């Protein structure tokens, strides 16, 4: 009995776990990664069995691991940070892959054909950034710090929107527009964040020299982040075009698209019998197989080049996906598409685990949450929601949405998971002097978003009728049977 009690002695358990957690950093990376994936997949399955989105499981697994580190090994040396750093490159590629997927769904032509939608994209982002900033400024946070929070929280996460939509096989205006607006939102945030950081840093430097004097912004200092953003877009687009060139057979169809030949064009007679036609078809089949490897190569190259040249990788990945384009029709038949789908799931497990682990669990477990931070976070979330409702409400009818859909779209643009964490960490890393209230409130807002938004989005897509049917509605009984039997019975009764 004593042995049994001793075995469960808290201090013994704690020291054993501390030793275990400390030693994880020394394990071969593949063992840690393998365990993490197994844990994430298991947690995802549990979430699914509980009728929740699988990403809840991934996220909670990450959050639980980081919390375990925070509770059992509170010193910095024993925290999860070194482990996370070891796998930073895996996370970057996984996130890059998911953003490429988001980019592949982006149809810039739609924004051109429906200018109201383009206006919505900019307006909802601007108003959300303004709303979040104003909510913090009400709590006496200096405007550059508040603006930084506004920029981080203005976008909606295309990763979450895309993953929930895909898991529900959602299709419709709310799902499509949410994917488009979240993709444009991430582009706007990726462009605006370095600018906001520059402004905050300039303001902080000026404040250090002379309190209360707003320093003039240097044009050059503003130009650098914008140039980087443009360069990332260009590199991503080039890599995407390369992926498409290698893996897609379609060539020079722009002329055909602008003026497709009429049915009775004489030239058509020979076209189908063209000797090159069979070669084109053969090539079309062959090139499908190259899509997976070329796309994966493109993502790795983009992430690597962005790190090398100091460019915003997120932006480059969205551009890569946009230029590589979507090919939806083979998704059920081609083997490489099944492979792409598996890689996408793997990437989802990884990024949501890291998103769960990256929040400041150490600080929260050790110092708790102040009421002020909670108020600021909820204030920001409400301001963000209100502004997105206003922006989409203003432009919804103009862009072809019904009122119900406009409200649903505004709600569908609330998730910030993963990309929000990435932007928050980038801001915190680049600007250590970020107002603590602002940075902690953003982190808490991200946590609240992670907890609430996947469920909200899933519910929303079901309520609005855009989620795919869960299964075929099998009518196993004969709907005509009752009528026939009634007739026969009636006849028999008469006889």
């Amino acid at each position, binding site marked *: 009995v004593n042995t049994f009690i001793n075995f469960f002695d808290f201090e013994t358990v704690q020291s054993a776990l501390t030793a275990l957690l400390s030693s994880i950093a020394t394990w071969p990376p593949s063992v840690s990664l393998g365990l993490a994936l197994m844990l994430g997949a298991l947690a995802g399955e549990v979430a699914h069995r509980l009728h929740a989105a699988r990403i809840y499981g991934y996220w909670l697994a990450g959050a639980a691991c980081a919390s375990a580190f925070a509770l059992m090994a509170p010193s910095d040396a024993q925290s999860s940070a070194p482990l996370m750093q070891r796998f930073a490159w895996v996370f970057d590629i996984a996130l890059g892959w998911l953003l490429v997927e988001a980019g592949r769904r982006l*149809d810039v032509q739609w924004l051109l054909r429906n200018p109201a939608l383009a206006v919505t994209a900019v307006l909802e982002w601007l108003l959300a950034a303004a709303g979040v900033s104003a909510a913090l400024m009400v709590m006496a946070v200096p405007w550059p710090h508040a603006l930084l929070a506004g920029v981080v929280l203005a976008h909606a996460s295309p990763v979450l929107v895309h993953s929930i939509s895909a898991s529900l096989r959602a299709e419709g205006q709310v799902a499509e527009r949410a994917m488009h607006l979240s993709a444009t939102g991430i582009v706007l945030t990726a462009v605006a964040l370095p600018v906001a950081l520059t402004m905050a840093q300039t303001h902080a430097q000026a404040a250090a020299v002379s309190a209360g004097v707003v320093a003039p912004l240097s044009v050059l200092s503003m130009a650098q982040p914008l140039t980087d953003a443009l360069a990332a877009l260009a590199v991503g687009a080039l890599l995407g075009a390369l992926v498409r060139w290698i893996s897609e*057979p379609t060539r020079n169809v722009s002329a055909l698209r602008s*003026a497709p*030949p009429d049915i009775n064009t004489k030239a058509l007679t020979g076209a*189908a019998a063209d000797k090159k036609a069979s070669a084109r078809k053969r090539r079309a089949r062959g090139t499908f197989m190259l899509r997976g490897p070329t796309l994966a190569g493109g993502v790795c190259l983009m992430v690597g080049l962005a790190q090398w040249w100091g460019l915003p990788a997120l932006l480059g990945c969205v551009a890569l996906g946009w230029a590589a384009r979507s090919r939806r029709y083979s998704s059920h038949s081609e083997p490489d598409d099944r492979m792409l789908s598996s890689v996408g799931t793997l990437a989802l497990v990884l990024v949501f685990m890291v998103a769960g682990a990256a929040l400041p669990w150490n600080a929260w477990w050790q110092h708790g949450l102040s009421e002020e931070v909670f108020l600021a976070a909820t204030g920001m979330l409400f301001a963000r929601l209100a502004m997105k409702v206003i922006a989409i409400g203003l432009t919804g009818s103009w862009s072809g949405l019904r009122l119900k859909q406009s409200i649903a779209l505004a709600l569908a643009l609330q998730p910030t998971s993963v990309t929000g964490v990435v932007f928050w960490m980038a801001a915190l890393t680049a600007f250590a002097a970020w107002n603590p209230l602002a940075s902690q409130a953003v982190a808490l807002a991200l946590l609240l978003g992670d907890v609430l938004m996947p469920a909200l989005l899933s519910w929303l897509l079901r309520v609005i009728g855009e989620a795919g049917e869960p299964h075929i509605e099998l009518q196993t009984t004969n*709907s005509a049977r009752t009528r026939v039997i009634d007739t026969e019975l009636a006849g028999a009764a008469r006889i």
Partner: protein
Amino acid sequence: MLSYTTSQPLTMGVELELQLLHARDGALSRGATDLIAVVHKKKALQPRITPEITESMVELNTSIHTHHDPLLTELRELRDALCEAGDKLNTAIAGGGAHPYSVWKDRRIYPTERFLHTSKLYGYLAKQFTVFGQHVHIGCPSGDAAIALTQRLAKYIPYFIALSAASPYSYGEDTSFETSRLHAVAVFPLSGHMPRLADWKEFNEYFDEMMGYGIVGSMKDFYWDIRPKPEFGTVEVRIFDTPLTVEMAAALAALVQTLSSRLMKQTDALPGVATYRVYGYNRFQACRFGYDAMLIDPQTKESFHLGESLATLLQSLMPEAAELGNLKPMMYLQDLASAQQNGASWMRAMHAQTGTLEEVMRLQAALFRQSSQSDATMDATKKVAASA
């Protein structure tokens, strides 16, 4: 007893079932509800653009016309309204008899009482029925005339199939058929041709019998290739694949009108039993080989080439076409028949040029929304006809 609404002979109207596509990648979308909501903001369009059995299709209905040109003008207006609404929703509109690579399980039934009932009764067949046809209504003065025209038109079904065929692909593969759409129709128990009936009285007896069995509730339950439509006072030809352009749709309507004009004047006996014995085989030949089909003549018991006999038929119809103002569309059809081209050959040619069916669908949508080329071709044909 069904009552027959008398209508002016040889008036015509067209119903076109159209594909709703994702503009980005040409896949079938589920956007009918949203598209109809946008289109119906204009009240005049409410009865003209209506839902169909699944969310991936809409139906475009013209008003009643006596001539080809106003029919074409209306079709173009409806098409433009539809495409404009589609632009807002990133939904492209396309003709064609069937989507080349859609999967039936991804379709969704449009939520009306009738469509949901059809879905309950027919199970997966209802979703698989996401195929797209053109229906041409021809006005008939009486029920007897409608029954007679329905039967006399039956032997021309292979020609209609060859001209309109525009569904050579299914599940991403070339089926080797000119039209695969009709296979989706053929599985329904009341498809095929109307039974051989002498007149309106006999038709009513047949209808009452089927009602008595509980097999049908209305004329809509008959999926025949040609059927009388007593509430409109018309005969409805339902065999056509939706053509790739509205110009082609109007031309096919003009052909039915011209042919009906000749058939309505005939007073000889209605087609005999032999016509119906070869009906299925001739229909298959046309679906499979299009213009190259070898048809059986039940009278002579000899086979003949569809393309050659179609050319003769079109030429012989020119006097009636001239009377009805249908020379222009009839010559357009003559051009197509002589070159042995139809929607299926266009799709195959585009597939040969681009290598992907996704690109074919995008081109198909682009072709549907433009009319300039067809118009120019038809105008040129008209000039040639006038000078001749």
